[in-house]
């Protein structure tokens, strides 16, 4: 019976963590390039041990017009490659600008990587023809000059991608490879919205809340049952 109470406590605890995840999804309902997180699951592996798995929904978010030449959205599979403080990061947040030194950087100043490394516009800026064009396959041109092509990569093992802030995922260097160009299209002047669906999140939230309530009731019954067993043999 005491065992039962521990199991119930565990359920109560994990439901709270699920609510944390759902709350974060709902808070990021308007975050550019955000990929929703799925509350963690437990499962038995082949060795009959319980393992915990947490996954992200890497599905496409809605692509909306922003009319800014340095905003880019990926439709299809793939991630932009950026250089984070502690290694390579991937993102679907294509809200880029040019830094003071001429590098193409993300919203938070991380350098965006191209096929030839960091992308520097400095030497290519042409006052006669300053139009930046980004082709569907990621090739960047200023006027007529070729700058570089964006490195669009896909994650090999999605489970090993760790979330960092700014809608980025940190990955090990051997965990990504170039995505094949037929699987994605870069859309210049567009941004990808968050892929959080409020209805699905509400559904999960209600379910989690009700599961919590069941566990709560269970604990109260167990408490009452233990109370009764403590009264057995009591002398009146």
């Amino acid at each position, binding site marked *: 019976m005491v065992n039962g109470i521990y199991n119930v406590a565990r359920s109560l605890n994990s439901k709270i963590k699920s609510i944390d995840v759902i709350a*974060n999804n709902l808070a*990021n309902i308007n975050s550019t390039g955000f990929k929703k*997180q799925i509350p963690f699951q*437990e499962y038995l592996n082949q060795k009959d041990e319980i393992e915990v798995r947490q996954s992200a929904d890497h599905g496409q978010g809605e692509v909306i017009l*922003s009319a800014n030449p340095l905003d880019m959205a990926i439709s299809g599979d793939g991630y932009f490659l950026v250089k984070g403080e502690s290694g390579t990061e991937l993102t679907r947040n294509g809200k880029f600008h*040019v830094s003071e030194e001429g590098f193409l950087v993300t919203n938070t100043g991380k350098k965006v990587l191209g096929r030839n490394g960091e992308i520097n516009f400095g030497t290519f800026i042409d006052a006669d023809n300053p139009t930046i064009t980004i082709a569907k396959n990621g090739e960047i041109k200023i006027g007529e000059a070729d700058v570089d092509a964006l490195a669009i990569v896909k994650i090999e093992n999605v489970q090993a991608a760790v979330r960092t802030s700014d*809608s980025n995922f940190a990955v090990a260097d051997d965990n990504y490879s170039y995505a094949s160009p037929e699987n994605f299209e870069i859309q210049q002047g567009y941004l990808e919205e968050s892929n959080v669906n409020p209805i699905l999140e509400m559904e999960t939230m209600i379910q989690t809340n009700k599961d919590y309530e069941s566990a*709560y009731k269970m604990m109260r019954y167990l408490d009452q049952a233990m109370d009764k067993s403590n009264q057995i043999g009591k002398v009146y």
Partner: protein
Amino acid sequence: MSTRALRTAASGLYAQQLNVEVISNNIANVNTTGFKKNKAEFQDLMYQEVQVNPTQASDAYAAATPSAKIQVGNGVQSSSTQKIFKQGDIVATNNQMDIAIQGDGLFQVRKSDGTIVYTRDGSFKINSEGKMVTSGGYLLDPEITLPNNVQSISISRDGSVDVLENDGRTSTLGTVELAKFMNPSGLLALGNNLYGETASSGAPMLGTAGSKGFGEINQGFLESSNVDIVEEMVAMITAQRAYEINSKTVKTVEDMMTMANNLKT
């Protein structure tokens, strides 16, 4: 009990409030000449690793396994509000000092402290010294000074300013030069329809209207605000509903906390 979900929802509420503030500023400027609408951008906050409980009280298995950790986010933050430099409608005013840019480019204006700022508002006036100034009184750059016996002014599509004087002579006074930025949404909004150069906008590239990707100048027209009321209303509904859904999170967590407090009869 952890209050992370509550704080996460609070960050969501705060973000949506900011979103509504930006939208209401757009709506308030629906009739402002040359106004460019704003859009608030959001991104997620940092993530934390959280341990998932072991199967049983005595089971140390989960504590020893790295995979028994999950990542939980901490909510949302606003990353920037960006200007959207979409063309506004060009409206005829029949005033010869009103000029509108159809296409890319901004007018250059010299502030009283000498710094150059930029604007799309082409409702120019003549000051007491005969110079072209914005409605706020700042000088157009390069300066254009009108003689005092002017009958009419004509500003051509490429920006050159010609005047017809009382004695029937015509003369060219100069050219309205336009500036273009690689990343116009990186410009700093200074109020009064003025924009300042920043590191993220890049340095201005100067040029003549109608050439090399610059827009054309239309005399007798003004560019109205590029705010679309329908679009703003849709954005406002979305923001309000997003606010509401975050408040549901607060309610749900509160329910759960109440239950936790009632566990012991």
